[in-house]
């Protein structure tokens, strides 16, 4: 009797469980809808469409992750360290076997905007589809044309990820997507003008600026994906660099930059406040300098409209001249190692050598960027095909952790800077993590 009742109850329970499991299985492997499902395959594409697609690829900086220096463009291979293990960017050339040559426009759209490969396999959100989802249908169509016909096919098999079973199962990403990845393309805000809307489109969508500049939550989700959230582009620590705020924060953001200076920075890699360095060098070398002037103006307009947060940012910086002879630790190192370029007065030689007085890296409480650039120097900034004449050298072999901590504490506490002292332990830690001779230096954690 008891047994029979148990069996009956279990039967009643099993049914909804089965249904739920079936629904879950369907949900996590389903191929999402795409507006291109019925679109017939095109044999060839118009040149205008191809060049538009090439431009969208520039805006989206596909090459940064999907290419390795010196290798075939878009053939993949870049290693990205995730908390679960290393993954590698894939071959997105139109090679039929190892690339995406067999993709239809609908397949391509699902991958780019929804993070779903043919067959329902979920991509890792290292691919910034939560941003690319904002791309317009026309831009996706053009991008597809470019990758099918404007890129040379390269036969290069993808490198499998290092992530062990069961963590390498992809279906839970579908649940992550349900929680964190939006599904709608960019919708223009009627109350804003066309310039603002174009800027918002590029910054949120193809430009995926938030991938680096927006802080991430516990699930590695960007805490906001547009201006409706206060953390949007408010600055974030990643890959051993601090990607500063792009909001109107006078210290850690763009509060002291004019729209023209933002345009100049993205176009030439430098302005009176700063020179690109760290991960931004790649974004500049491969992407922002190729943007059209009207698009750069739109980006500047949009960023200038994002309010700062005085609470997070602190008292606005003001230059303070140093008069007395400085006998504090670090001052001598500064005078001998840094002052030739950055000046004893910290004002640099704008726009070629950036000022350290008022620099974000000297005002942000995160000291990672200041330490990293001092240890490892800057990468080559290539503007319009010409490498820069001036570069930050690496002091890894010349200065100890203690000396770097002292000189950076000096820089971050002089000329009105108030970023705070740097601890030698933090220098030591980043020295190890970024050691080019180590087997697993930080390359890229999340993009």
């Amino acid at each position: 009797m008891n047994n029979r009742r148990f069996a009956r109850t279990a039967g009643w329970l099993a049914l909804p469980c089965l249904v739920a499991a079936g629904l879950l299985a369907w949900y996590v492997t389903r191929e999402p809808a795409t507006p291109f499902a019925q679109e017939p395959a095109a044999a060839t594409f118009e040149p205008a469409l191809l060049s538009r697609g090439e431009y969208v690829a520039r805006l989206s900086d596909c090459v940064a992750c999907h290419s390795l220096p010196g290798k075939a463009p878009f053939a993949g291979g870049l290693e990205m360290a995730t908390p679960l293990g290393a993954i590698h960017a894939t071959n997105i050339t139109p090679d039929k076997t190892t690339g995406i040559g067999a993709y239809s426009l609908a397949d391509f759209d699902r991958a780019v905007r929804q993070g779903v490969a043919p067959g329902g396999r979920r991509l890792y959100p290292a691919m910034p589809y939560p941003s690319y989802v904002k791309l317009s249908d026309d831009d996706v169509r053009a991008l597809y044309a470019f990758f099918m016909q404007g890129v040379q096919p390269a036969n290069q098999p993808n490198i499998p990820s290092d992530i062990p079973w069961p963590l390498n199962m992809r279906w839970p990403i579908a649940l992550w997507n349900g929680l964190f990845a939006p599904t709608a393309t960019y919708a223009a805000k009627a109350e804003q003008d066309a310039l603002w809307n174009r800027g918002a489109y590029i910054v949120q969508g193809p430009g995926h600026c938030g991938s680096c500049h927006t802080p991430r939550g516990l699930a590695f989700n960007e805490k906001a994906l547009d201006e409706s959230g206060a953390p949007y582009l408010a600055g974030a620590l990643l890959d051993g660099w601090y990607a500063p705020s792009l909001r109107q924060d006078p210290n850690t953001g763009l509060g002291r930059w004019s729209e023209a200076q933002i345009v100049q920075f993205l176009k030439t890699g430098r302005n009176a406040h700063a020179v690109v360095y760290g991960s931004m060098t790649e974004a500049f070398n491969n992407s922002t300098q190729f943007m059209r002037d009207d698009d750069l103006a739109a980006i500047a307009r949009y960023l200038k409209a994002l309010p700062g947060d005085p609470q997070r940012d602190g008292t606005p910086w003001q230059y303070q001249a140093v008069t007395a002879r400085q006998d504090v630790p670090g001052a001598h190192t500064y005078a001998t190692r840094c002052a030739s370029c950055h000046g004893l007065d910290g004002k640099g030689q704008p726009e070629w050598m950036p000022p350290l007085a008022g620099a974000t890296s000297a005002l942000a409480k995160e000291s990672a960027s200041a330490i990293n650039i001092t240890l490892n120097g800057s990468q080559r900034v290539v503007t319009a095909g010409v490498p820069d004449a001036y570069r930050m050298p690496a002091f890894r072999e010349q200065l100890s952790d203690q000396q770097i901590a002292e000189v950076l504490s000096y820089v971050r506490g002089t000329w009105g800077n108030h970023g705070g002292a740097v601890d030698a332990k933090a220098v030591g830690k980043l020295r190890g993590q970024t050691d080019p001779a180590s087997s697993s230096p930080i390359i890229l954690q999340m993009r």
Partner: protein
Amino acid sequence: MELRINQKTYEVDADADTPLLWVIRDDLGLTGTKFGCGLAQCGACSVLVDGHVVRSCVTPVAGVIGREVTTIEAIEGDAVGKRVVAAWVERQVAQCGYCQSGQVMAATALLKHTPAPTDAQIEAAMINLCRCGTYNAIRTAVHDLAKQEGV
């Protein structure tokens, strides 16, 4: 653009961000100033700008428009520079000589602003590298000069 170098005016056709060192050596043929590292690390390229020592490899040429540049070629036209060169000869400082035009510039700038520098001031100012290791001879020569002035 117009540059004042060694009391002469030169008309130079260069981009604003061209390092002063390249202009001095390549455009004007004043090759006494040397290229060492190009990264502000060695001091071989030191010249005087308005009497202050700067590393010309990291000085965009636009930054010295309207200012007076002095290179090693004209250093003996300067009273202090002349004494520095004499002390260098006296102490036979140079080995290969590659770094020495920069060393002379650094010493001249120091003594122009601080005629009788202390040991600590000498240490702090004479920071150019010398791959031949003439540091002891440099220090002796600068100490000689510091004493001459003190007397």
